[in-house]
């Protein structure tokens, strides 16, 4: 009994630093933001309590809904591109073990480059006067595909999403290679002996074994997309207007450019809420699949 209590105290001291860090830098700021979101506050004058006023403003704001849908599109694209391509490339690399480490490093390289640098690089690539994208298209005879990538409403959002979707594929490749290496070889071999082909082994043996890894990757992917900022900000400042802005950029513009910290806090609360909802939904879906 005494030993148990001593162990608990000991465990408490180990948990304390993490608990304190999370409380100071995550929980308390979140509570503060929730409080600010109920106030009209320009960051200078006294706060005026307006209840749900900021949320009503957001609901009525067309800019908010544009950025909301932009963010949702980003979530869908990154999920589709990063998870599926990450899984596919990881599986291909895993099956062709020669040079695995080199390829893993090459694919991981963009992940360690600052998003700001990637954004800047792509904004130069996209430039219709000096960029290489249009020149490359011309070189392969696809002149008709030339676009003003950042000034054409039809392709603007896609052009801003693309670098972000591409940059982090490597991270999921690395996660999935690790996951693949944890799949028991006996399972795969027995399926092979039973006559399962490559596709069947992948979908019926390997993917179910990687369920938790895929779940975590999807959560990382969704939360990463919800807090996106750098690529959009560097390439277009979220513009023209808010046409290429995500919720994170809109929050920044509202709070720090327009000095409306109350409304900015309300946007950040909606981002956190969305992240929670997505996480819960994903956990529920993957939980059910894993059980089955």
């Amino acid at each position: 009994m005494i030993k148990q209590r001593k162990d608990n105290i000991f465990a408490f001291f180990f948990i304390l630093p993490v608990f304190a860090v999370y409380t100071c830098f995550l929980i308390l700021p979140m509570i503060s933001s929730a409080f600010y979101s109920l106030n009209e506050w320009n960051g200078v004058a006294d706060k005026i309590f307006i209840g749900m006023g900021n949320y009503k403003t957001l609901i009525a704001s067309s800019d908010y809904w544009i950025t909301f849908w932009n963010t949702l599109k980003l979530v869908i694209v990154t999920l589709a591109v990063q998870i599926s391509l990450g899984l596919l490339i990881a599986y291909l690399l895993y099956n062709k073990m020669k040079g695995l480490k080199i390829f893993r490093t090459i694919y991981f390289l963009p992940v360690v480059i600052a998003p700001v640098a990637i954004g800047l690089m792509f904004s130069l690539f996209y430039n219709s006067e000096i960029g290489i994208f249009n020149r490359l298209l011309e070189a392969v005879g696809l002149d008709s595909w030339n676009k003003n990538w950042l000034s054409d409403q039809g392709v603007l959002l896609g052009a801003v999403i693309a670098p972000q979707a591409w940059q982090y594929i490597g991270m999921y490749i690395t996660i999935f290679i690790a996951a693949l290496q944890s799949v028991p070889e006996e399972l795969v071999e027995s399926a092979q002996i039973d006559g399962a082909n490559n596709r069947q082994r992948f979908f019926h043996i390997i993917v179910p074994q990687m369920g938790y890894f895929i779940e975590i990757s999807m959560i990382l992917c969704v939360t990463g997309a919800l807090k996106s900022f750098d690529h959009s900000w560097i390439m277009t400042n979220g513009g023209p207007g808010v046409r290429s802005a995500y919720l994170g950029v809109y929050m920044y513009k509202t709070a720090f450019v327009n000095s409306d910290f109350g409304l900015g806090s309300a946007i950040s609360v909606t981002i956190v809420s969305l992240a929670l909802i997505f996480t819960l939904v994903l956990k529920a879906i993957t939980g059910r699949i894993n059980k089955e």
Partner: protein
Amino acid sequence: MRKKIIGIVCTAALIMGLFSGCASGSNNGGTKEAISSTDMAGEDTAASSEKVTIRFATNWGPGDAKYDYFYPLFEKYAEENKDKVEIKLETLSTEDYKTKIRTETASGNLPDVFTWWGGSMIIDMVDAGLLLNVDDYFTMTDKTSKENFDSSAFGYYTLTDGTYGFPLESTRPVFIANKALFDEYGLSYPKTYEELKEVSKVFNENGIIPIAMASKNGTPSEFFFSELHSQFKGAEEELVNMGTTRNFATDNALKTAEAITDMINQGMFPEDTVANGDWGPCLQLYCDGKAAMTYTYPWMFESMTDDAQEFSECIPVPKLDGATNDPSTFVSGFTVYGAVVNKASFEDPAKQQALVDFIDFLTSDDLTLALTQSGMIPAKQVEYDMDDMKPIFKKMIEFCEGKELTSVHYTTMPDLEALNMLDASLDELFIQAITPEEFLDKVQAELDK
């Protein structure tokens, strides 16, 4: 037992580390460069009874056109006064700098002195009583007086009940043309919109962009918009009175927006107006000979190649159809930047004299003259030697001589959100995502809030 002791020691070390981390976290995290390694002013004052610490924040950091001219003099001043005062220099690039100051305003941690814009950018700070009325400084200094500045220089920092900033930089735009390109194609500088259309046609046929003008976050389009707007009858009154009328959506603004739309349709600007937006990319197109004309400001002179300064000629913006004011008789001119002082710091007896001395330095002739070499037009009246100036600066001064000065939306817009909406909507107008009428409505709606 030994393992437990080690564990406890490690845990204690972690906790100590955590709390020391929290403590240092209260410092200004945005500082890029500091001339000393000491921490907050109050702590310093306690450590040495005589010496005070002043925090000076500016966007004139490494990479800024003024840095090379500002920093040596600043360093000299800090060295000469190191026994009395320690000056912490905090620099960031312009956009990050704006965020830093807004965050520090919200957290009650404003620097003691910082360079800042006037107009709508100081209204909230003045309302909250955060900024010093400059008259309080002028009563305490014998080094300078308001009369040493251009008569209109303080207007940008003047609100109804006082003046809250020291104007340092005045400015004039230049509409410049590449003489070599005009000569090559046997063209004359366009004086009217019709002539501009003809010239543009020739340049477009030869793969040259007629005017390097684009719009990213309203840059540089917002200033060009104001320049064109000034050509219409009553435009100046509209701008000057905007603080009281809060009326942006006028016939003149509509004519200007329509003119810009037509210029886009005529192919006068780069096709990709976002990727080529901002001061740098526009000027780059011009300096590289990819564009025949551009519209820029002196703060970009430092980035102009020697060749470009030589082949450039300042010309009036062509007169738009329906314009009544002759563009060759006026030019935009306004105070664009200066310094403000934290009122609470100034009222601190321990810091007051040090702050007066430091503002003496910021407004000194020596620093003003040094900054002038970066292309800055001084807001203070100083005699500078034209031989020290860049060729493009000389051409600009010569061109602006005797011209009437007009206002711009940047300094007269009464509301920060409306100014930001003007910038954002101009980006949309430039990609033709909205019509001129929708553009006006968006900005006006922000003013009507």
